[in-house]
């Protein structure tokens, strides 16, 4: 091969090493150096980002309660053909494992898990556990149905087997108001129990409103900052950044002071004669929107500003000199060039508001609680990791879908114009 190629032959050094090999060697050491440089960052990302998210997502499908506490029963149930009642060995093993779990948190976990599959199983388990142990030599297959008739039903054992599978879609389905019925089909939750889709829609709507408000307020502000003389624009920049230097809690507290019934805003409204009685501004959507818009405004102003700063005033002048009136020039020439900034700012604000917790929690009423409130509720109060993880997964999925939408319509290939249409 190389012999047929005189130029490649000529490219051997004194040691007779072909050029390509030498190049590969040189490249390899360079690549190793680069790899060594990014290794700390890669590890960091892995440890604080990839791993927690992955384990969180794993939590949303994890199903440990029965697997850990009734392992032998589940193993014995493997051989059951799903028809009639399981054989005596299953009943015996079950009675023994249930007895062993008695008096420890394990029994509560089993009861809670089974109750989640089928309401009423909690009391059945607790009641049965109290009656254990059975007398020596007693036939569990006969005794258990005597304690409660449900042990004599095929459905109960099917439920145990289903609840014992290593993975469960239960939490994820619940997070979007779905469940499985007795036959294993996915069905919607009845109206009274379905809440998370509403919460998700509410979260999306509130984030959209906040994003729109931020854009409406932020666009003129960024435009002013980009066009005013340095001194004034620096002042504006400080005003925009000021909120960054105070804690979110302090800002929220300040809004409470301003918006409460006897607060400055209401006093001003009444002094102006716009209203007789104080307007309720707190613990409803007004307070949440005001505070969230205020807190998130810099995230739309800064990207917009940096994009606008890069748009030469010559474009507007060129448009005007070509005969286009100033307003129209702004719309047709300036505005399209700000789209990357609008996209980036809106995405940032939207994604941040999707996960917002503290402001709605402190300033909103029950109707303003967003999805993160429920995540916090499940992690802090009921210690239901499965549900918290599933809601987080839904939030993550919504965010990713949104990001894909963004990169489709605002991403570099759309606005960088590097490809002809």
């Amino acid at each position, binding site marked *: 091969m190389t012999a047929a190629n005189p130029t490649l032959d000529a490219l051997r050094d004194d040691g007779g090493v072909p050029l390509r090999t030498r190049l590969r060697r040189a490249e390899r050491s360079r690549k190793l150096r680069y790899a060594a440089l990014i290794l700390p960052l890669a590890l960091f990302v892995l440890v604080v980002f990839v791993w927690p998210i992955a384990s969180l997502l794993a939590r949303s499908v994890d199903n440990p309660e029965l697997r850990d506490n009734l392992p032998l029963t589940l193993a014995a149930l493997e051989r059951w053909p799903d028809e009639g009642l399981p054989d005596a060995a299953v009943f015996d093993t079950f009675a023994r494992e249930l007895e062993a779990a008695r008096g420890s948190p394990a029994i509560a976990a089993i009861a809670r898990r089974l109750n989640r599959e089928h309401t009423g199983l909690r009391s059945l388990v607790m009641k049965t556990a109290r009656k254990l142990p059975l007398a020596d030599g007693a036939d569990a297959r006969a005794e258990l149905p005597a304690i409660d008739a449900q042990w004599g039903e095929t459905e109960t054992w099917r439920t145990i087997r289903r609840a014992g599978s290593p993975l469960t879609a239960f939490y994820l389905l619940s997070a979007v108001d779905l469940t499985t019925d007795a036959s294993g089909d996915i069905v919607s939750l009845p109206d009274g129990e379905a809440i998370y889709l509403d919460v998700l829609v509410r979260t999306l709507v509130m984030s959209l409103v906040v994003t729109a408000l931020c854009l409406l307020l932020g666009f003129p502000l960024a435009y002013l900052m980009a066009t005013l003389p340095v001194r004034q624009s620096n002042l504006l920049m400080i005003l925009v950044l000021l909120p960054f230097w105070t804690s979110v809690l302090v800002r929220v507290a300040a809004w409470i002071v301003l918006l409460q019934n006897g607060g400055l805003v209401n006093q001003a409204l009444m002094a102006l004669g716009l209203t007789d009685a104080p307007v309720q501004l707190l613990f409803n959507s007004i307070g949440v929107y005001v505070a969230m818009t205020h807190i998130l405004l810099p995230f739309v102003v800064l990207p917009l500003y940096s994009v606008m700063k890069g748009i030469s005033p010559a474009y507007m*002048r060129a448009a005007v000199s*070509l005969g*286009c*009136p*100033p307003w129209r020039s702004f719309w047709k*020439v300036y505005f399209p060039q700000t789209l990357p900034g609008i996209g980036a700012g809106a995405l940032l604000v939207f994604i941040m508001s999707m996960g917002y917790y503290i402001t709605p929690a402190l300033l909103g009423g029950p109707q303003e609680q967003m999805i993160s409130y429920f995540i916090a509720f499940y992690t802090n109060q009921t210690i239901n990791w499965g549900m918290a993880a599933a809601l987080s997964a839904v939030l993550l999925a919504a965010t990713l879908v949104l990001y894909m939408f963004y990169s489709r319509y605002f991403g570099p290939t759309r606005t960088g*114009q*590097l490809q002809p*249409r």
Partner: protein
Amino acid sequence: MHRDIFVDDRVAARAATAPEADALVSMRAIQKSYDGRSLIVANLDLDIRRGEFLTLLGPSGSGKTTCLMMLAGFETPTSGEIRLAGKIINRLPPHKRDIGMVFQNYALFPHMTVLENMRFPLTVRKLPRAGIDAKVKRALDMVQLAGFEHRYPQQLSGGQQQRVALARALVFDPQLVLMDEPLGALDKQLREHMQLEIKHIHQSLGATFVFVTHDQSEALTMSDRIAVFDRGVIQQIDTPANLYENPANAFVASFIGENNALAGTVLGRDGELSSVRLSTGACVLARTGDAGGAGQPAIVSIRPERVRLARDATPLAWRVPARVTEQIYLGDHIRLRMTVADCDNFTMKTPISKLDRCPCAGEQIELELAPEHLLALAPNPAP
């Protein structure tokens, strides 16, 4: 006496800038100040003739762009009036002026293709679609960019962007086209090519072009007339040849082309000629420019290519001693640097074929400074 003649000359020069019959644009007594303290443009009178290629030339900060911006309508004069085709346009907003403009960095809209850029001024004017396409095609053909319609500006080379900008400024048939250093960002070769191309486009279209540059060779190459700016004042407005051969003052003489300036004092004046005593005591005869009368300080100016070595036939009064300091061989010609009177950077430029013997460095020689090539000018006022 001599002084009076000189003043009359100035009055005559003023009269020449009174409104012209074929002026497309006339700017009268224009003043412009940005800060209310200093005048960036001071008392500008300028007539732009229909169909001419006028270049505004001057050093950086001399007010060329300001002047152009007032024409385009992006700046308003602090006082004075601007007429376009007879109508005062001081208060006319820029989008109603129908003036094409090419910006230094082209200002092609980055989010539009070449085609969309070109259509922009026409759709704004609500022309019918067929008319738009025909005009765009003609303009793109003119700048030899047919086939590039669907590229974005970033996908074009600097020279191509330049052409698109030019075509866009011309596509709506404006009566006046303004260009602010449009070639500044191009490399030398491309710049020279574009100079000729723009000149030819001007000739074929017959529109009026106003071109701003601070590159004098660019101005000389392209223009019908050149207005030389300095510190907000037009120093001279004339054809390239006249500017070069008969600069109105020391600034123009030194700004356009190479120039040797010898300081001296006017001794007296005899019609067309003045005699000037140089600092060494030697006396030279020179055509009278804007130099003052007897006793006034003056500068005697001569172009390097007009300097010759003295021959036997050279009259005594034309002879000036010099000492050669450096000899530079440039292939087709030779440059000699020498000390003459108080000037130790005096340059002579001569084709090698015209030289019998080349003086070497350190040699004492005599130069021939013919009065018809010498010009006595008033020294530059201190800035």
